Structures are given as structure tokens and as C-alpha cells.
């Protein structure tokens, strides 16, 4: 590795340690997978331009999620897409790949549809907690609210989701463990 200045090395480490997490964050929140490339590219561009502000250690990821959240909000409002940055990433994410049969089983779609009906902040608290695996304190840092608010919202989101899902789902522990890919039956 070529020597470089400490801030540059630090940024590379931050990128390496967080790229996948940020990509996952973006993919979970955009309609078209290719759009996640714009969110990731813009987020890390902001981070690069403000690298002196990125906190140390694990807090860096929370800071990046916070930036990504604002980027995503601009994206949803129709913010200008960066044409130059992340073209290759966009192409790779847009490339047709073998569909993951597990991602589209009806019950999963039902859950996502129910989550879509939650309030924005409630849904985000739920996603940060369960999909990103953040503690209430960490989710609070991303959302710039107090941990108490996160706990309240989380509790409310769970209750509302339970209500929305109602009887739509089969018994827990059964439906979501099925092998969704078609498996040839023996003897055929």
C-alpha cells in the first residue's frame, strides 16, 4: 500500500469498514436496487468532504447512517442524481442476477407492506433496530432524537405492526423458515 496522509488512510479504513453496511442500509430503503448506488456514492462523498468531522470508532457508522438518511431524503424528494459517481456500482446493482426466491415469498411482502404503513419515524426506528441491529442509544444518535423517544417509538411500532399483520401471517416460526426455492421432490 502506498503511503498516504493519515486522514486519507483513515477515510479508506472507514470506507472499508462501512461500505457494506451503508449499501445494505440504502438497498433496504430504495425501490430500485440501482438507486442504492446513488445513495451510497453521495453519502461517502459527503463523508469524504467532511472527513475531519467523522467521529472515531463505532460512532463513525452512526454518523454515516445519519448522512445517508439525509441523502435518502433528498433522493426521495427527487434530488439530482450524480451522473459521474458510482456508475459502475449502479450497473452492478442493476445487473440482472438470479432472483433470490426467498426474498419474495408472500409473507415477507406482507410484512414489508405492513411496515410501509407505519409512520416514517416509527418505521425507521424499527428498521434501524432490527435490520441494522442498532441499540436504542445508537438509533437515537442516527435520528437525532433521545433514546427515550426511540424506545417509545419502537414499542409503538411493534404494537402497530402486530395489529396490521393480524391474522395475515401463519404461526410464527413456521412460515418464515420455509425453503422458498423450489426443490424437486424425490423421485421426480
Amino acid at each position: 500500500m502506498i503511503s498516504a496522509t493519515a486522514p486519507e488512510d483513515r477515510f479508506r479504513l472507514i470506507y472499508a469498514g462501512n461500505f457494506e453496511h451503508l449499501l445494505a442500509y440504502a438497498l433496504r430503503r430504495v425501490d430500485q436496487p440501482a438507486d442504492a448506488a446513488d445513495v451510497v456514492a453521495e453519502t461517502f462523498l459527503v463523508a469524504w468532504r467532511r472527513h475531519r468531522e467523522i467521529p472515531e470508532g463505532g460512532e463513525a457508522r452512526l454518523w454515516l447512517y445519519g448522512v445517508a438518511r439525509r441523502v435518502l431524503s433528498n433522493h426521495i424528494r427527487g434530488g439530482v442524481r450524480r451522473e459521474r459517481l458510482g456508475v459502475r456500482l449502479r450497473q452492478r446493482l442493476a445487473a440482472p442476477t438470479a432472483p433470490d426466491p426467498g426474498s419474495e415469498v408472500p409473507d415477507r411482502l406482507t410484512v414489508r407492506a405492513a411496515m410501509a404503513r407505519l409512520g416514517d419515524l416509527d418505521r425507521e426506528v424499527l428498521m434501524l433496530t432490527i435490520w441494522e441491529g442498532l441499540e436504542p442509544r445508537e438509533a437515537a444518535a442516527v435520528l437525532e432524537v433521545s433514546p427515550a423517544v426511540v424506545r417509545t417509538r419502537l414499542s409503538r411500532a411493534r404494537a402497530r405492526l402486530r395489529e396490521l399483520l393480524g391474522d395475515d401471517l401463519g404461526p410464527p416460526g413456521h412460515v418464515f423458515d420455509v425453503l422458498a426455492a423450489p426443490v424437486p421432490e424425490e423421485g421426480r
Partner: protein
Amino acid sequence: MTDEQLDRVIRNADPYRAEVIGQLDGAGQTLLEEIMSEPSTRRPLMRRLVTAVAAAAVLTTALGVTAVLRNHQSAPSSDASGSSGASASPSEEPQVSASGAIRYSAMVLQAAEKNPRLLIKESGWKVGNVYDFVEREGSIEFHNGDRRLEMNWYRAEYYDSYYKDRLDVSKPKPATVDGLPGFLFTYSYGDWAIQLKPNGDSFVELRSSGTWTQAQFDRTVSTIKQVDVQTWLAAMPPEVVTADRADAAADKILADVPLPPNFDRAKVAALGTNSPYHFGALVTGLVGCGWIAEWERARKAGDQAAVRKAADAMKSSHHWKVLNDMNDGGDWPEAFWEVSDKIAAGKDPVGYQDWLGCSR
């Protein structure tokens, strides 16, 4: 459903699949390189490498037009600038008129008229690093005790992007610098940025660091004045390599450096205004890029003798005086040598264009 069961249901509905990472085929790394080649506060990659010299390269000459003009008059003699044999065209060189004032080339003046420079007129300020001051871009640092003020010029086309970015820093507050309108952003107390609206085809952003009070910042900013290029260049300390000093400075640097075929010496004159370290990096960068291009050409052509010659030239960089002199000041020599060692070992120096600034 218990909370635990519900959470499992939600977790299973996560649309993200980790397999996607394996399908990116290096696109994540490409994005990183793209991002890091974008201008940041610290400028693109090559410039960042050379900015590791802040502590070592702080120049201590007090700002003062009179003092610097005096220095200009004792600037390198025509013998020195004429000895290169391949200097930039005479029309690009500044000349001393009968009255003793420096006259700069039409090209330099034209660029500067479009992009006025700023100077701090408050006493006690000194110029630190200056680099890459070309037509529309450049950085200059001023120091006064614990207080630092950096000014970065960017191309006007980046303004919207930078402005939007700073909106995440704080709410913008209208501000002016010598009558030029802009916005003040607060990173934290003592760490302020004033982003001026584009003026000509560039815009400038001022950023404070160190120990400031609000009153000190306001007072210093109120003394900043727009100046024309002659005044600005004249205010540079003698150590700074301005266009009129570039040829002589390059002669000194290149004295023990083998030049690649078709080395375009005129490019030296187009490097803008730079601190000595930065100038050394830019000049050796030009040489390195030339040798690597020759090495690649020769490899393609199967010209083994030329391949060896280019590799030997790059290997010799370990002994170049300029790089050894610069080694305590920053990381540029190490980066250069690492690329050189790859060439010497017959390995492709992937990404060297970025490292050495070959796209300039």
C-alpha cells in the same frame, strides 16, 4: 406474537442479501477511488499527499508587499533562468520594468482578473502553505499565532454541491468579505467557514481553525481585501515558487534527475503558485509520469532496452536530492518511491496516474 417472534418475522423480511457484495466485481473499490479523486477540503489525492507538510513547511516571512517586491528585484538572475535551455516561452515570464514593478504575462493576468485573490490586511498574519494556485483553483493558509485561516478556491461548477453540503453543517448566515456576498457556516465555535458566491468562474471558501474568538474572527475577516494578481503574487514570501521563479526552481530540482523522452519542460511554468515542497512534488510528478508512460510504451513495443532505461530512471529516484530533502516534510517521496519500486520490479503500478497527478 411476542416481541421476539415479531422481530424474527421482521428480520426475515429484510430485503438485503449479503450475496450482493460478492457480485459487485470491485465496483465498491472503484467508487472509493472516484470519491477520493473528487475535491475535498484537502483537495484531490495528489494534492493531499503534498499537504502533509504543514508543520514543516510553514513559511515565516511576514506578509508585506514592499518586502516581497524587494525580494522580486533580487529574484533569480537571467543567467539562472536561461540555463535550462528549455524554458517556457519568454512571453510567460514576468519582467522587471524600469520602475522596478513586476510585469506578469498576459495569461497570468487574465486568469487573475477573472478570479480575484484575497489577502488579510491585518498585521501579524503570515503565509503558510500555498499550493496549486492556477487559474480557478488553489489553496493558501495564513497563520497568526494559534489562529489559522485557510482559503480554498474551487471551480464555480462545484458551488451548488458544496453549498448543499455545508447546509448539513449549520444554517447559513449571510456574510460578506470585502463586499463579496456569501454565507457563514458554523462547524463549532472557532471553526467557521465562509463560502462566497461564485465570482467569475470560481468561488472561494474560507475556513478558520485553531484558537479564535468570534470577535477576532469578525475583525480579521473585515480586513480581508480583494487584490489584483500583481499584489497577490507580490505578497508571497520569497520561498514560494511563483511563475517567475518556477524555471530557476525547476533547474535546481532537475539537476540530478534524468528526464524522460519528450519531457515537456513548458509544463513547469503552468504549475501555478506553490510552496517549495508542493512545487517539488509537482515537478517530480511530471517526471515520474513521463517515465512511466515511456515504460508502458516500451513494454508494449517489446523494446527491452527502453523498458530497462525507464525502470532505472525511476529506481534512481531514491537518490534524487529533491525527494530526499522533502522526505522529512511529508509523504510525497515515499509514495513516489513506492511507485518507482513497482516499476523497477516490473510490476504494473496500478493507479499511478492518481498518485502522481498524471492527469494534470
